[in-house]
């Protein structure tokens, strides 16, 4: 199984969620995060005082899927989350050695 973590723009969350649902992806977990990347370093002025907004609010979507569907998930996310502007975010993929559903104790793909 794979864990796919995508850091995306807030206002794309709804679209990504819907796109994944359409592809039959039944579950995901969302976390509020703050990102720092190329989109960094812009300064704003508030009442005459400058400050650097180093961190921009982003949302992290975590999806655990079986091996086969991981590419589908990645493509779906890219399609739904892309605006083409700096700051669209990243997708990180890693391996999961095990997955368990707490309610039933089921393991592996069944647990997804």
């Amino acid at each position, binding site marked *: 199984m794979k864990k796919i973590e995508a850091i995306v723009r807030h206002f794309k969350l709804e679209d990504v969620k819907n796109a994944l649902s359409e592809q039959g992806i039944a579950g995901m977990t969302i976390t509020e995060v703050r990102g720092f990347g190329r989109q960094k370093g812009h300064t704003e002025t508030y009442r005459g005082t*400058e400050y650097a907004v180093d961190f921009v609010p982003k949302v992290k979507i975590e999806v655990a899927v079986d091996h086969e569907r991981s590419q589908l998930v990645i493509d779906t996310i890219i399609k739904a989350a892309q605006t083409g502007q700096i700051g669209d975010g990243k997708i990180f993929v890693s391996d999961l050695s095990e997955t368990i559903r707490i309610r039933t104790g089921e393991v592996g793909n069944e647990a997804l």
Partner: protein
Amino acid sequence: MLEFSLRGYSFAVLFAASVVCPTVVIAQQAPPQKIETESAEVSGTELAEEPDQELSDRQIAESAALAGHNAWMLTSTALVLFMTAPGLAMFYGGLVRSKNVLSVLMQCVFLMGLMTVLWALYGYSFAFGGDGPYFGNGEYLFMQNVQRTWDDAAGAAITPLFGEYPAQIPTLTHMLFQGMFFIITPALICGAFAERMKFNAMALFSILWGTFVYCPLCHWVWDGGILTFGGDHSIAGGALDFAGGTVVHISSGISALVCAIVIGRRRGFGHEDMRPHNLTYTVIGAGMLWVGWFGFNAGSELASDELTSSAFAVTHFSAAAGVLGWVIYEWLTSGKPSVLGAASGAVAGLVCITPAAGFVQPMPALAMGAIAGVMCAFACGTIKRKFGYDDSLDAFGVHGVGGTLGAILTGVFATRACWDIADGSKLGVIDGGGIKVLIGQIVATAVTWVFSIVATFILLKVVAALTGGLRVSEEGEIRGLDDFDHSEEGYIIH
């Protein structure tokens, strides 16, 4: 060591004093001193408690007059306290980072306690006692000649009264109303050194500043001192200051600037994100300040009469024009109207009209508010950036600048049609009174600036020496004052 000993102990003295004083005063109570400056007399209402006694029409009318004026003045007094907390507490509290929000609220609430006790013990006496040119006297120490006393001859409790017959209120009411100003003025200064000053240093500074800056200034302007309009000792004829343009706003705004410069910038100023953590508080606080300011300005008539309504109206109009002024300036210069701008504009308009409230007409009030909105926006934006001082919450940019504008514009717009204060002669420039009043306003403003700068600078040095430095440690500043000074957190979700 010294800082340590100052921590709580300096307050323990006050604390002890407040327990000891009653006995002192009670011991003195027997012969009620004749109060000469105010006409004190047995009040009709009290006599009314003897139901068998026949009341004359005049007595009923007099007690009715006191009831009406007192009703408004007590309401105004409550409104001015309402300005400090919740009003200013929310306005300022929302502007800091979340890790410092409690420290700001604490400044407001703690000063409500501290300054009130000082006012009760000696502040009112130093500000309003006697009529010497420079400083009050001991006439009202420990509330003597203010509180009610038992008169053995009359067999009744008597109450010192304040004001010109028949628009009189108990001196107690005057003391309370003015006491609320004594609280909010140092609280305004806290905006300049927010997020970095030590709590004990703030407390000690407020005691000294209240005693050595506020009390004299108040006496100069409002109790026959060197800046009183048409007073015996007046410099350049004195100043028109209806509700505290010089006494409250210029004094606090200028002192704030000195504090900001002496204490230095916040760590990270100019590059770290220091945006207001809760603009909803700031807007709500601004709304509360607006409402409370009606007590501040219209209450400064010290009665409920026609001029009270006029002062109320111009206060409201100037606040409104301040909102439009700041928002439109910002809209034109930066492309977006900000919510913070609207809130700040209201306060700027309110500050500017404060000295003028009893002297100007509605249309000039709109002009004053609009000018203040634009000029304060410019001061908080362009000027602050240009000079690089860190006036954290713009206490100078709003109160110093707005107060100075207000004092000067009062000299332009004041008219005897509002308050015939000079026996029928014309007042401001537009009223046709020439520049006499305007010059008095400028001189009084200059005196207040110089006095505030010098005195605040000296007091800060004294406080720094006694408390081992005005600022919290670098670690304290990073962790936030809430944790560092008070071991508390503003918001916890669970």
